[in-house]
């Protein structure tokens, strides 16, 4: 985490003045120390909170993952890497990883392009577009639990709204067991996820689209670019930073998916919709094998962290250039 507090860089009339003394003189050095102390002073409360609420629990989970531990008292039965070996031999957990990958791919291949299409559409001059934007964004505001209950009713076999509608237009054959059929549960779940989250990505893209200067599009029109060319060569490149953020959020969200699955299927039928977080919950809070559950959470954390860091390093680097400032750059 880099510093947001920049004592060295000043703006306003002051900044233009040359430093009163040479950088190596004692006065300058004292000021730097003072700046340092101020910076540290401002950061201590945030760092302390971050340490106690985020770092410490992570370290503790890592520690606990090397023990066979029921969750009460301190862990004492050290088992080395046993939990991790067991984890990577567990067909349910390997299935979790596979389902996670499926969700990531589906999200990137279907959900985000759909959101982009809707955003481009709603960026046009369109009667009642504010209403559409609100409607599409609405599901994102609902809590996962409410969404879950709602859709388990809609997709209830026979009695549910989905089957009723299909039945009333003569398409009974398409009605099915939705969440109850092992081969259909992931598709149904993905449908609900798309309903819930595409509005959020659509909003991101809309904001991105609005920041694209109209002159560029106009210039392209003057140059005789077709609508597709304008989209491909003007809109898309300028929207790239937004797309990169949206992909990032979508992947992290897929890795940590829990609430929706828990409410709708609890990972069933027969583990066919289980995610890593659901498996972790089952072991941590149902079976009280907290050591093993910690190992799952550590793997989840590892996957997220590796993804987040490498994504920032390799994909977001360009977006971050110039936004990052360091103490070293201060005052020079």
């Amino acid at each position, binding site marked *: *985490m880099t510093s947001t507090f920049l004592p060295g860089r000043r703006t306003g009339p002051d900044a233009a003045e040359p430093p009163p003394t040479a950088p190596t003189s004692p006065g300058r050095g004292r000021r730097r120390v003072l700046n340092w102390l101020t910076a540290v002073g401002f950061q201590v409360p945030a760092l302390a909170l971050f340490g106690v609420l985020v770092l410490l629990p992570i370290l503790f989970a890592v520690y606990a993952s090397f023990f066979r531990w029921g969750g*009460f008292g301190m862990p004492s039965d050290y088992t080395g890497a046993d939990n991790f070996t067991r984890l990577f031999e567990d067909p349910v957990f390997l299935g979790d990883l596979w389902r996670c990958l499926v969700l990531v791919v589906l999200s990137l291949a279907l959900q985000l392009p759909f959101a982009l299409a809707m955003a481009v559409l709603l960026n046009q001059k369109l009667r009642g577009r504010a209403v559409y934007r609100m409607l599409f964004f609405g599901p994102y505001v609902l809590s996962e639990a409410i969404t879950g209950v709602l859709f*388990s009713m809609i997709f*209830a076999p026979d009695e549910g709204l989905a089957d009723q509608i299909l039945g009333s237009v003569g398409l009974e054959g398409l009605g099915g067991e939705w969440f109850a059929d092992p081969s259909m549960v992931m598709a149904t779940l993905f449908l609900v996820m798309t309903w819930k989250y595409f509005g959020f990505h659509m909003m991101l893209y809309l904001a991105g689209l609005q920041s694209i200067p109209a002159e560029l599009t106009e210039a392209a029109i003057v140059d005789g670019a077709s609508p597709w060319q304008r989209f491909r060569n003007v809109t898309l490149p300028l929207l790239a930073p937004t797309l990169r953020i949206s992909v990032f959020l979508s992947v992290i969200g897929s890795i940590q998916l829990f609430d929706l699955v828990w409410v709708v299927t609890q990972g*069933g039928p*027969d583990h066919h919709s289980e995610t890593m977080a659901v498996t972790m919950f089952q072991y941590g809070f149902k079976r*009280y094998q907290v050591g093993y559950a910690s190992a799952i*959470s550590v793997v989840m954390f590892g996957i997220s*962290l590796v993804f987040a860091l490498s994504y920032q390093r390799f994909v977001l680097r360009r977006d971050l250039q110039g936004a990052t400032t360091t103490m070293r750059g201060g005052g020079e």
Partner: protein
Amino acid sequence: MGDPALSRRGFLAASAAAGLGMTALSGCGGDSDGGSSGTTTIEWWNISTTQPTKDVWAGLAKKFEAQNPGVKIKIVQLENDAYKSKMTALTASGKLPDIFHTWGGGVLKQQVDAGLVEDLTGRTEEWAGGLLPVAKEPYLLDEKVYGIPFDIGMIGFWYNKALFKQADIATPPTTWTGFLDAVRKLKTAGITPIALAGKEKWPGMYYWAYLAMRTAGADAVQKASDDKDFTGAAFVEAGRHLDELVALEPFQKGFLGAAYSSPTGQAAAVGNGKAAMELMGQWAPVVQADAGKGLGDDLGFFPFPEVEDGKGAITEVFGGGGGHALRRGAPQAAVDFLKFFASEATDLELVKKTGVIPVVPAAENSVTDPNIKAVQTQLKAATGFQLYLDQAYAPAVGQEVNDSVAALIAGSKSSEQVTESITKTAKEEQ
């Protein structure tokens, strides 16, 4: 501001790990006794947080205080799940409340093994001897009494008499073959034979547990749990019998995704007359009427049928109840309170006002509901008893039973694999 915000997002990824760690850390904590001079204060921990039970119990505590000057009862009430986790923490810390709620079985045994529970065998003999024997079963460990019951119940089939009649089934089946025949008849008549909450797993476990009791016998089920070996032939056979049932496709459409008490769940399916029966505990009629319309006089009860050539009898019951245990070294007043709570007068009040099944034989006649009476008759004549597996076994083993049996019903695990998975988990837990 782009960068710091992003970094924070990166760290949001840690929330899963952090969340689990936090909860684990919060599990540590203790409780201090509030002592006072002159009077004895007894802490009474229970899970009766709902009405009318809450008020009835508070009233009983007042009555006891009036009868025993110098004794004060401090009631601590916790919701079921909160109580379970609090008690696990207290057990780890080595200090239990004077009087506490218990379901008996594995958890009570853990507390007894830790030396935290008072042996009540001698101190309650004269008045506890007359209580319904099957109700005392869960608290009997190595022939010693560690708890006194106030409620008892069991699992059995709740069926729709009208639908059975429609399918030409004259009397409820008493054998497994007869049961499978009844299922076939119901299917032929176009009626969904059984409602099952596949999503929640535990209702499916009842079938396997009962079949194992019928093929192996209640004693053998107990022995398997003691030996941590469920691979015996009778257990494999139990799974096969369940396979026979599943092969008939007796469950409602989409049962693998169905919940128990939701408006589209198992209880509602029976309560609305859409399925002919369910295997459920004595609370079933209440939930059927709550989630669905309820069957009224059409509702009937029959015990889980016998398996031909099985070692178990139809009179062996699978169930559980509620009771109270005392911490080791609890004052005599706590024992007096248990005696008071197990008296005829108290039990009559509990049966009438809170709807429990009587544990004091003299209170039996106060039951008026014919179905509850049927359950009670079955319980009274019980020749064997098996406590709910999730209470009898360690949590991981109980969950593994649920999980494996759910896989068997979904068709992804064989009968042998079920017994192997359960045995493996049982051996892993110490």
